[in-house]
């Protein structure tokens, strides 16, 4: 099933777009796996996702760890640690 990906801040700049619709293969089960799969497909993705310690994620508008399963997710956002306030 297609998942809407959203990128923010330097992740967006590094990937080169603010989002995309993807349909990962069955073997991709977590956000980390999704990032691996995307990184294998393109150099900008590989660079954006190289340092996992600098990445955070949300599934359907809720913060989650990168090892969270993606089953049932409609929207997944990838971004740096937040710096508001």
């Amino acid at each position, binding site marked *: 099933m297609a998942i809407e990906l959203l990128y923010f801040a330097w992740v967006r700049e590094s990937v080169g777009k603010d989002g995309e619709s993807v349909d990962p293969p069955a073997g991709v089960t977590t956000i980390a796996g999704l990032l691996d799969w995307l990184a294998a497909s393109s150099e900008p993705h590989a660079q954006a996702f190289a340092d996992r310690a600098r990445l955070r994620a949300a599934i359907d508008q*809720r913060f989650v760890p990168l090892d969270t399963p993606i089953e049932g997710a409609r929207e997944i956002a990838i971004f740096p640690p*937040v710096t*508001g306030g």
Partner: protein
Amino acid sequence: MIRVQPDDFDPGTELARLEALNVGAVASFTGLVRGDGGLVAMTLEHYPAMTEAALRAIADEAARRWPLAGLTVIHRHGRLVPGDRIVFVGTASSHRAAALESCAFLIDWLKTDAPFWKREQWADGSSRWVEARSEDDAAKERW
């Protein structure tokens, strides 16, 4: 009340709204863009579909921990310059400790749990994304 907006706000108006609740204590925090070190502007990006819900969750947590009669959180996004207001947190309670503590709690949690990202532009033409600070995580953990 939760508001996410590009426009400025008037802290006096917001305080008056909380004072009108007629409880004994109103506390507030206003965050401003710092102008030190040659900063020219700051651009705040956010995750529109998530931001308000995230702020609501933080506000609900504050209301769960302290007896609050009123609570206001306003966070701006877009391009801001030194001296501009970024964020406002106001709380009203019958007790001063509840008003003060919940206000500090809200701003500490905003730093770590609201989906905003700041990009700084400098006088020399350079720009950079602000890095999250471990002190902010520590400030959240003290609650």
